[in-house]
């Protein structure tokens, strides 16, 4: 037995999942096309892209690692305030560098708080994450000399991107910028999700005890994915600050975390696009409802949540099934691979 242990064959199923699907290409082309086709909608499209990135972050821990969080706004808000402070005090005036720094700051916070979510049941995790977000909100509220307290962080001026592109009032730069960041980070998330690391996370989600038994270092994996998700959320928050030149206590709010869960539930968890599609639907719905009833739209959001749960989350996400079938038909390679696996089994 002198041979080095061979890398296990990932199998056709995994290979086909990791490969780019024609629909995915179409999805991103459509996102790019929106930039040129809908010049009057830059603002809301920017908001959608930020929310999508934020939802992507939650999907990494909820959909892949199975950690329920009701305080994910903690990292979003932290990133938002770090980016705002960096810009306000001219510490890192180049937006892209500031974005990275804000993300890294959130990563550090995520690493430190990840130890809190390792133990306990779903309920404990829900309350701990909620508590962390509340503590951060309280800190931002109390240290008004630094954060502006309840008035929000004012006087933030964002320098031109890369020293070249100004953030104009139509949101053209902001839209292109957020879309680019979203795409790059999505590529990274896709790589993570299809890597052995991502598969081990799904094993942990499936059954923590068995994952330990087959030799997966559960705690280390959870800490890393939680930190990575915090990085994503921090970047999303920083994007919000940079595109609006403002940060307020609202970034930490409980509603933000709760809405985020709704976004992910609408889109479906565990396949990365759920967050993006959910963000699109959620924002359009919110836009429509708040135009209809400016003050009372949370009622309808609440109703949607209640109905989704009563109907059954799994049954609800079946609406994407025809889409999957269509996807299979469009992608002849995936179909062949699946047929091959099926015939192997028989």
């Amino acid at each position, binding site marked *: 037995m002198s041979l080095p242990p061979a890398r296990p064959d990932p199998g056709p199923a995994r290979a086909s999942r990791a490969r780019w699907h024609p629909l995915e290409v179409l999805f991103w082309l459509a996102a790019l096309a929106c930039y040129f086709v809908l010049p009057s909608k830059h603002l809301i499209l920017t908001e959608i892209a930020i929310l999508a990135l934020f939802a992507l972050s939650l999907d990494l821990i909820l959909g892949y690692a199975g950690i329920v969080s009701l305080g994910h706004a903690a990292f979003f808000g932290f990133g938002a305030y770090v980016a705002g402070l960096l810009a306000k005090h001219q510490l890192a005036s180049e937006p892209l560098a500031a974005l990275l720094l804000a993300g890294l700051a959130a990563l550090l916070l995520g690493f430190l708080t990840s130890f809190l979510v390792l133990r306990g049941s779903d309920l404990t995790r829900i*309350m701990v994450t909620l508590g962390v977000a509340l503590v951060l909100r309280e800190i931002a509220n109390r240290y008004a000399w630094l954060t502006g307290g309840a008035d929000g962080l004012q006087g933030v001026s964002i320098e031109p991107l890369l020293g070249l592109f100004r953030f104009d009032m139509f949101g053209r730069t902001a839209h292109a910028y957020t879309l680019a960041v979203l795409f790059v980070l999505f590529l990274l998330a896709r790589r993570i999700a299809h890597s052995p690391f991502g598969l081990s996370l799904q094993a942990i989600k499936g059954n923590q005890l068995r994952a330990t038994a087959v030799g997966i270092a559960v705690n280390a994996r959870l800490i890393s994915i939680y930190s990575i998700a915090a990085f994503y959320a921090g970047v999303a928050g920083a994007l919000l600050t940079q595109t609006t030149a403002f940060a307020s206590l609202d970034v930490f709010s409980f509603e933000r975390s709760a809405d985020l869960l709704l976004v992910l539930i609408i889109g479906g968890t565990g396949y990365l696009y759920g967050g993006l599609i959910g963000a699109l639907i959620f924002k359009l719905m919110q836009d429509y409802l708040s135009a209809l009833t400016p003050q009372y739209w949370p*009622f309808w959001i609440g109703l949607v949540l209640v109905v989704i*749960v009563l109907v059954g*989350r799994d049954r609800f996400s079946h609406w994407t099934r025809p889409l999957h079938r269509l996807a299979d038909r469009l992608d002849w390679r995936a179909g062949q691979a699946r047929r091959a696996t099926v015939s192997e089994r028989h």
Partner: protein
Amino acid sequence: MLTILFDGIAYGMLLFVLACGLAVTLGLMNFVNLAHGAFAMAGGYATVILVNNWGVPFFAALPLAFLVAALLGLVLERSLYVHVYRKSHLDQVLFTIGLVFMSVAAVDYVMGSSQVFVRLPPWLQGQFNVLGVGVGRYRLLIILVCGVLTVALQLVLSRTRFGSRLRAAVDDARVARGLGIRVDSVFAITFAVGSGLAGLGGALGTEIVGLDPTFPLKFMIYFLIVVTVGGTSSITGPFLASLLLGIGDVAGKYYVPTLGAFVIYTIMIAVLIVRPQGLFSRGGVR
């Protein structure tokens, strides 16, 4: 100093009445009901309407507030909540958050978003001095009412047949079912009474903590702290936790106003890390 202690105890007692229903439902069905505050809000608004608009005396309005919230709890439990018990914690959280959002917006629509107050009878206002300690009349009333309720609850739980059925169901629902206890109906009654108590707490608390449509959101975290710190296996745990929280919160806001609510959140997280089952619960993992 003693005045702060007094105020803290009154606040803590109020929190206990508000939150004890949540402790029982969480312990009994392992159900996360984030919408518990909505029932408290229902009781509070019922009192406001009864007293201010219809001229019902304050003391007659309190039991009515209890009934309104209990009825609401019973109806919602039988019609909606029953479908969610078997689902995952994530589903329960989503469902009850949805209810919270709906209640907040609905009350905002019907009652307006501004804070409302109950018109109290004059002899309940102001405070008097006992040995140099300022005692608010209304706060004294709260302590009396909540104290009587606590003793009554404790007696019901420990002395009556219903109480022993409830305790059996909390300890092990499956075995209790096997012994012929109808856990579902025990739970429905408990849920209704818990909601009713929350409504009563909301009615009493209007004067102290204020009442506006965001009440369920603002106090959700307080309820959760009481339940997590106190544990769900007995009624004394949440009671002690509420007192600690009440005194800690009032004293904290008085002595170190810069830290504010920061202290209690941190304590909650610390307790959850060290003892996920709560400070006062028996050790075992549920």
